[in-house]
């Protein structure tokens, strides 16, 4: 008879389903990084002077930095000179003006990934910006959103069409001096998404970016900037995949969110970059800086992330709670399997009075994976009556994986209230047996238990994303139960 453990191991042998490569002619820079590469990227993008100046300053600063190694991560040194810093699918003349000009192969790629770009086919309610390697290939629903004054376009287009907004906000939440990877990104980022929601406007649909790394030996450095003006609201979704390759690929993105008075930004990520194979060969190195600033009173920023991909994840979506009564939230599911390593968490920096933050982190480790929660709650002297609630739960599958929790707390105001709860549990044989006795096979049972464990986070995801995320959790589980 097939035992539950055997069934579980079969479940483990699942392949990464987005591992295909698109054969497409690309315009790719030679490997290497120096000032002329930075200049060449800026020139390719036809950027105004202020952009180039900013990039060059960032590059100079980056050269003075050393790669950080304080995280609970182990990986061979990255050779920054062996990477190409720009790759774009070749298009005749300028970039595509509309979807009819986009290479059908690209459309097919996104269809394979389940991201239809054809507006008429797209289910109501989601506008998509698709980034393929270094450039944005299509932004849907742009015109319709424009009528409401909402700007949703590729970062490159924003630099051309709204340079004043870029100049005003770029680097104000994550300055190029922030950290090694943020500095690198500032110097060489090639595209990304830009969103501006004008005062009082509630964005009527989910805005979405889909990032896809395709080209070999390239780094992907995209930058996202979202600004919600006074009393605005936007919900933004981000998805990512990459082909299956034996070598590691670098992804170093920056996301900046700005919420003005009473504005709300909800940012959801399903990160499914190629995680490497079961022996730890290949996979994406994901070094991402994501931060939001609640600049105005009563503003709110929520991060929700479901992280199942990447060989290495280094990511701490954070909120600076500057406005009085502002709210920051971080809901995270990080699942690591085989040899994956994740060091992820958040920073909640309370500056405003009565600012409030909630952190719910669910880490799942299987195989030989290492999963670390690292979080900082900082209460400044000015943050009278600030409150934080943090809950970190770890679920272990098997005996060779690890779960680690590093909560940091700094409070300089004695009227603040901070709560922290943590737990570690295992999927038990008893649970699997109970469900099997009700006719539910191991695969479905594990998926049910894991989804139950993550429920508090999953329910914060927008509906269409939640379905995808739930499937992904089931698919990504490879590893044995000890």
């Amino acid at each position, binding site marked *: 008879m097939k035992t539950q453990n055997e069934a579980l191991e079969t479940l483990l042998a699942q392949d990464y389903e987005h591992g295909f490569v698109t054969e497409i002619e690309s315009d790719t820079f030679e490997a290497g990084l120096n000032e002329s590469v930075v200049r060449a990227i800026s020139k390719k993008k036809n950027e105004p002077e202020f952009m180039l100046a900013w990039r060059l300053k960032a590059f100079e600063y980056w050269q003075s930095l050393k790669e950080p190694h304080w995280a609970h991560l182990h990986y061979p040194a990255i050779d920054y000179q062996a990477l190409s810093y720009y790759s774009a699918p070749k298009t005749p003349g300028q970039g595509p003006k509309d979807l009819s000009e986009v290479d059908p192969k690209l459309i097919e790629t996104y269809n394979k990934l389940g991201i239809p770009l054809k507006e008429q086919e797209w289910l109501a309610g989601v506008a998509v910006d698709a980034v393929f390697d270094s450039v944005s290939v299509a932004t849907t629903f742009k015109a319709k959103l424009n009528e409401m004054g909402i700007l949703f376009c590729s970062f490159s287009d924003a630099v051309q069409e709204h340079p004043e907004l870029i100049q005003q906000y770029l680097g104000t939440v994550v300055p190029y001096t922030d950290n090694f990877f943020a500095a690198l990104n500032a110097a060489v980022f090639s595209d990304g998404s830009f969103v501006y929601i004008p005062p009082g406007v509630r964005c009527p649909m989910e805005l979405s970016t889909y990032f896809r790394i395709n080209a070999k030996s390239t780094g992907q450095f995209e930058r996202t900037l979202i600004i919600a003006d006074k009393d605005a609201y936007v919900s933004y979704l981000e998805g990512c995949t990459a082909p299956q390759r034996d070598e590691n690929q670098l992804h170093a993105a920056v996301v900046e969110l700005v919420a003005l008075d009473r504005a709300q930004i909800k940012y959801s990520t399903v990160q499914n970059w190629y995680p490497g194979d079961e022996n730890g060969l290949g996979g994406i190195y994901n070094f991402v800086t994501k931060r939001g600033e609640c600049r105005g009173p009563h503003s709110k920023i929520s991060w929700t992330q479901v992280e199942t991909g990447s060989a290495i994840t280094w990511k701490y979506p954070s909120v600076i709670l500057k406005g009085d009564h502002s709210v920051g939230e971080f809901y995270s599911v990080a699942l690591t399997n085989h040899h994956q390593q994740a060091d992820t968490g958040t920073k909640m920096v309370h500056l405003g009075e009565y600012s409030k933050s909630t952190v719910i982190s669910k880490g799942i480790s299987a195989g030989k994976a290492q999963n670390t929660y690292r979080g900082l709650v900082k209460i400044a002297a000015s943050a009278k009556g600030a409150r934080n609630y943090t809950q970190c739960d770890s679920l272990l599958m098997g005996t060779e994986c690890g779960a680690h929790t590093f909560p940091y707390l700094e409070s300089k105001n004695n009227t603040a209230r901070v709560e922290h709860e943590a737990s570690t549990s295992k999927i038990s044989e008893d649970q699997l047996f109970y469900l099997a006795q*009700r006719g539910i096979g191991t695969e479905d049972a594990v998926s049910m238990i894991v989804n139950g464990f993550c429920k508090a986070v999953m329910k914060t995801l927008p509906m269409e994303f939640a379905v995808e995320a739930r499937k992904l959790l089931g698919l990504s589980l490879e590893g044995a139960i000890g």
Partner: protein
Amino acid sequence: MMLIIKDLHVSIGDKAILKGLNLSINPGEVHAIMGPNGSGKSTLANVLAGREDYQITQGSIEYQGLDLTRLSTDERALQGIFMSFQYPVEIPGVSNLYLLKSALNAQRKKQNLPEIDAMDFLNIVREVMKQLQIDETYLYRDVNTGFSGGEKKRNEILQLLLLKPSLCLLDETDSGLDIDALRIVADGINLIRDPKRSIIVITHYQRLLDHVVPDVVHILSAGKMVAEGDRSLVARLEAEGYEPFLEKKTAGAA
């Protein structure tokens, strides 16, 4: 026959628990299995349900003509074997509703039926809940999480009534129940008594058997059946205890 167990020997690790157990059950019969602590009652239920830690070292189990030992736990469940757990496990974050629906749909899939419509399902489950006097909020609570002992047992019977199995294994379903809950649970079990269905009631006490009247009563001791009789055996046990039956075994007369 519903179930034929012949000369069953079972161990956990090095420890032999069942040592040559025989049991035959016809469709429609209710068998009670009683016996002192450690005699192997729960082991028998777990082995029939397909728990992994138990090794069958000798003997055979035939269920509806199938060699049961060749089937995995979930396949057995889909073939109509249901165990009401002595200690139902908690599954945080998974709603009772979701579990019930998944279990029912797993069964329907096996029978090549489409997934049940959400409204139809609610109607069926509400009907069953009414019979068991279970509040509807039950559906939206996490499986067994924070349930009292009695609530957990009632939840088991709810699943039993919904899944309509052919062979029901009730492992100390009466423990942890107060008089009223016992009555409700017993009524639930009586509801599913059917000429095509067999029930094994594992219990320490007479009180459940006052409500669910067994056709055959067995006494299990040290891994073997040592006595068999009709319901009058239960009364004898209550009056005399297990002692006379155990002596019979040590005398080698079983």
